[in-house]
């Protein structure tokens, strides 16, 4: 039986204007503001989106996780923190130890390392030095990446928010089937005399 391929969000660089609304929407969807109509003043921590606007001379578009079928991030995670949930590949932040291996493994650069915020403050951890002496205090950092907004009723926030419709769900299996059908129709309509001995076109 064919297993379902994970959907993912893909950007159309010809439509992207580089406005960052997708980043804002993504960050807001993953912040515990709980507000239905968030305003800038509700933010008590930095915006930490899981998709990243890339601007190059040739193209501008956001880049995010492809939810690979044989994901190198999941395979390389020593804490088993990256798992499939409702088809999407999700980092379980509670399990993540911030080792950054997944960041190195991902060929798309889709994983970022971010501080954990609670009540507007970065959660801190203390680390003892070798001689058991002075502790350094640094923020707890975990890996984050696109999780397809699993659990969000309206689906991926970036897709909903993009003002130019540049982001869409790439339902790859459907996409492939449609293209095959078009290719076959193209053959039927336009390709003549594949077998010369058939005579007339």
């Amino acid at each position: 039986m064919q297993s379902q391929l994970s959907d993912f969000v893909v950007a159309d660089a010809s439509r992207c204007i580089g406005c960052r609304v997708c980043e804002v929407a993504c960050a807001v969807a993953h912040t515990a503001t709980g507000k239905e109509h968030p305003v800038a003043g509700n933010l008590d921590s930095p915006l930490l989106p899981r998709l990243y606007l890339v601007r190059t001379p040739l193209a501008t578009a956001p880049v995010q996780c492809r939810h690979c079928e044989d994901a190198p991030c999941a395979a390389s995670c020593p804490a088993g923190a990256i798992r499939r949930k409702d088809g999407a590949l999700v980092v379980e932040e509670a399990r993540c130890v911030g080792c950054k291996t997944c960041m190195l493994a991902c060929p798309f650069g889709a994983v970022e390392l971010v501080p954990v915020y609670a009540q507007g403050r970065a959660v801190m951890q203390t680390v003892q030095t070798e001689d058991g002496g002075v502790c350094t205090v640094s923020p707890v950092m975990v890996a984050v990446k696109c999780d397809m907004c699993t659990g969000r009723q309206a689906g991926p926030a970036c897709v909903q928010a993009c003002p130019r419709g540049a982001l869409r769900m790439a339902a790859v299996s459907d996409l492939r089937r449609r293209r095959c059908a078009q290719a076959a129709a193209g053959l039927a309509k336009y390709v003549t005399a594949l077998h010369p001995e058939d005579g007339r076109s």
Partner: protein
Amino acid sequence: MNGQQNVIRIDSDICTGCGRCKDVCPVGAVEGVQGTPHSIREDVCVLCGQCVQQCSAFASFYEQHPACIAEKKRERGLFVSEAAPLFAAWHTGDAPRVASRLAEGCHSMVQCAPAVRAAIGEEFGMPAGALTPGRLAAALRRLGFDRVYDTNFAADLTIMEEGSELLQRMEGAGPLPMFTSCCPAWVRYAEQQFPDLLEHLSSCKSPQQMAGAVFKSYGAQLDGVDPRQVFSVAVMPCTCKKAEAQRPGMEHDGVRDVDAVLTTGELAAMLRQAHIDFAALPDEPFDRPLGSYSGAGNIFGLTGGVMEAALRTAYELVTGEPVPCTELVYVRGGEGIRHATLTMDGRTFRVAVVAGLQHVRPLLEAVRAGTCDVDFVEVMCCPQGCISGGGQPKVLLPFQRDEVYAARKAALYRHDAELACRKSHENPQVQALYREFLGEPLGHVSHNLLHTVYGQTR
């Protein structure tokens, strides 16, 4: 140009050149090539701040330098502790300065625009359209303002003055159509683009400025202080009001009507800075007498509100009878131009309401050509009136903006409907002010304090 730097600016370090600011600018003041940082033409910009509301390019956590961000916050007049990200389009900030002045000690009087009480709750987790006048008054007291007065009182005052002025013009004392002058972005546009039509503007100051003028005359008298000792602050949904307060002509007897203007967002920042839990505050009243208002004054904050308030009073002034139904739904609506005709005492009265400054040009060209057959026009620069102003809480998700604006409008109409006094001329404190101090509308005292001349150097 008087050398004053623009209230509205674009930070080229953060701007990605997406051009969405260009889409919303009602006057085409934004310039730039797609993909490269945009800039604002200061000679065209009307300081409405719609670009600031729209701008979504922000300094990314993944790319920024903390030292650079702190420096930018100082440059923008923000508290360094503010957690919200820095967007490319921004407005100059006055909150730290106001907080310092309050801390130094002064005799302070504050006013809030109607639109503020329909939106400030959003900054503290309340739903869109939460109506919080009581908490607003309480919050201002906790911040240390001596007198918590209200712009809505002055809106009632504006109706008295402007209504009388309109009726005089209807009798032939001045050119028609008459345009409202309470929206400073609209006034700025008229001065830049249609300076030949300025005599059509009402000579009234805006409610913000009338309030400031009354604070530093009558208000100072009531408190037994020298007007020059009064620190007059206004909280506005508007960025242009910051420039309005600095205009020549927005003064009386050598003192500025308004010393500092804060946006709704800036007031919220001050409350956060002072660790005041807005949502937990009790409801308190505004101070009397200059904080008492009617429902008519309250609806100034939305498109059609000034017109409706004016007609509620004008109808009675002309016919001697109260308006049959207080809700004048035929002047209510959304962005664009609306026309209405009513009959008062056998006379036909034609009005227009413009919401969104990009829609006003045809009307003005008709006035120039002498073909405009309207008597009175309300113009608001922002798409749904002040509740959608450049200084309001910034809605983060563009697809939610319309819902939030609709909720804020509904809140102001709701407040109007629940108030006992719904017409400006019936506000007992306004009546008392005329009796005790001003005399009569358009009289000598009013002329000095409450009116100005438009078209002077910006």
